[in-house]
């Protein structure tokens, strides 16, 4: 071994640094994508609007008056509205939008991160480094999660601070809702990673992620409404269909319920985290399968 080589390289593959390098690379990549720039601009505009357009006067914990642009009075119907109620409603709207459109948008934007890693010519260069292949997948996944976490933190943290500053009411439940949306994204993203590694196709990967999110809605209703499953149980084909639906409900991420829990968290209602922890196995198994598949492929 030459003296220079010995001086500049570690003695074993530096897994931690490699993961950080991949996260940093994913962030750099995101910065160069217009979709992320557009998202950042839109979020900033929304926060600016929240900070400057709506003026709320609070007297003894209730809203005395509210004005747009400082001059246009907002009718509050003569009834006294509690500040906590008003803030919760605004935050519930934000949570509702983010846990549906926002989450789908996040899946759409991050859906090509894994397929791009597997581009011919680029995967050869990455995989020929002293890096274990699962590290490449996990590093990129962590990178995507970091990008979405940063975006959510900006939006949630920003709106929370502005509303707290304007009303004096800080709703911690809103931040918990943000965490639940992030978790919901993670479970769908894990499935998207698996689809991306197997097909190496961005469109298929994106469709898989969005499909997993949407699948949570019918599966929830099939599970929730017992009369449906009872009806299915009338004959064996129906029993089979019911069993399949019930199995899928437990296997797939419970995205619909996670959205519901996020709304409950915003309203500071008691929170059951069962949908979260029962969705975790799907995410971990998907990521493990993705790593296994990627490790045995020829590039």
């Amino acid at each position, binding site marked *: *071994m*030459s003296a*220079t*080589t010995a*001086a*500049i*390289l*570690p003695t*074993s*593959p*530096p897994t931690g*640094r*490699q993961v*950080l*390098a991949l996260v*940093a*690379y994913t962030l*750099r*990549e995101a910065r*160069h994508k217009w979709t992320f720039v557009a998202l950042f601009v839109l979020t900033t505009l929304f926060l600016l609007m929240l900070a400057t357009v709506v003026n709320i006067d609070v007297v003894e914990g209730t809203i005395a008056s509210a004005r747009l642009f400082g001059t246009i009075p907002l009718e509050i119907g003569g009834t006294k509205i509690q500040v906590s109620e008003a803030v919760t409603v605004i935050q519930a709207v934000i949570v509702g939008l983010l846990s549906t459109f926002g989450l789908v948008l996040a899946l759409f934007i991050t859906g090509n991160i894994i397929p791009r890693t597997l*581009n*011919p*010519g*680029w995967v*050869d*260069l*990455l*995989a*020929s*480094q*002293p*890096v*274990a292949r699962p590290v490449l997948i996990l590093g990129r996944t962590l990178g995507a999660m970091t990008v979405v976490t940063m975006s959510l933190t900006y939006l949630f943290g920003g709106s929370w601070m502005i509303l707290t500053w304007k009303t004096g009411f800080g709703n911690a439940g809103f931040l918990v809702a943000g965490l639940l949306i992030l978790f919901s994204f993670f479970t769908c993203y894990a499935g998207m990673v698996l689809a991306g590694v197997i097909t190496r196709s961005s469109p298929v990967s994106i469709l898989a992620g969005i499909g997993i999110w949407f699948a949570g809605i019918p599966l929830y209703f099939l599970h929730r409404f017992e009369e449906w499953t009872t009806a299915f149980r009338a004959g064996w084909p129906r029993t089979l269909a019911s069993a399949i639906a019930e199995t899928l409900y437990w296997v797939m991420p419970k995205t619909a319920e996670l959205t519901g829990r996020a709304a409950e968290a915003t309203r500071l209602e008691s929170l059951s985290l069962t949908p979260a922890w029962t969705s975790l196995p799907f995410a971990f198994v998907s990521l493990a399968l993705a790593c296994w598949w990627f490790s*045995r492929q*020829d*590039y």
Partner: protein
Amino acid sequence: MPVIQAQKLEKIYGGVLGTKVHALRGVDLEVGRGEAFGLLGPNGAGKTTLVKILLGLVSASSGSSTLLGQPAGTPISRLRVGYMPERRAYPSFLTAAQVLDLFGKMLGMDRTARQQRSEQVLEEVEMGKWRDQRVGGFSKGMQQRLALAQALLPDPEVLFLDEPTEGIDPLGRVAIRHILRGNLEKGKTLFLNSHMLTEVEMLCDRVAILVKGEVVRHGPLASLTAPEAQYRITLGTEDTEAVKRALAGIDEAAEELQAPPGQSIWRLTVEDRRQLNAALDRVRGAEIEIEEVRRVRSSLEEVFVETITEATERAGDAAQGPGGALTEEITVPAGEEVAR
């Protein structure tokens, strides 16, 4: 201990439903430290597959291989290895410096080492002034140089180069050759995979020729290009009869070649130098002036074409034998003696 070692490496692409392609058939190979090794072969011979197995990009169907004493394909075996693949696609938004910074991090270099080494290798491949330019705007030649810089980044002990000079102008080729020679002088091992036979001829001291996944010929370049003791003798006479008389007895081994006026040129095939000297003594004894004696060497290109033709003919013969050829992977039955 060899730096690169492959034993009975086999690779079959394709699965249960798809067509099987036998890319490597029992390849045995050894490359020593500090050696410049050239792997030659026509398209589809299995050269890139072999390199990719050694680097862990492709898994072998059977057989074993080691790289720097470690099982090939493990991350630790690639720690002190540079690789310049034939097919590469750097993200267009990265600058040359950012590409090297990313790969420096993947190698575990600290910030100072990354910066210093990046500067060094970019200067070495004459890309210093382009360090902050985005790769998306690079020409093919510039991307090639960047790939070489990236391969040199870890100051590797083994350097794998797949078609390193393709797409580069003649001056660039000279520069790359100069860089590679410099690395060889530092004791690095070079594994060159190229169609550019002149490049291989100028850089490598040992070569292997791969045909349809089999090493059909290998050895030191000098012995491959000069397989027999053949000499080209230029004499200061036009009197061919006098030369024939002088060479009586071994004249069957002498072949007259075209010569300019006042000279005659002969190609002499002898068993050894003693026989050559005896022949030269006879010529001198006949008072014929000897102007030049030169060993005849084939060019690598001639050796390459001859080897491929022979191997293809043998494969054709085998295919026409009992049973005939069924699929591509059985056109050359495993175990058939093709290599010399």
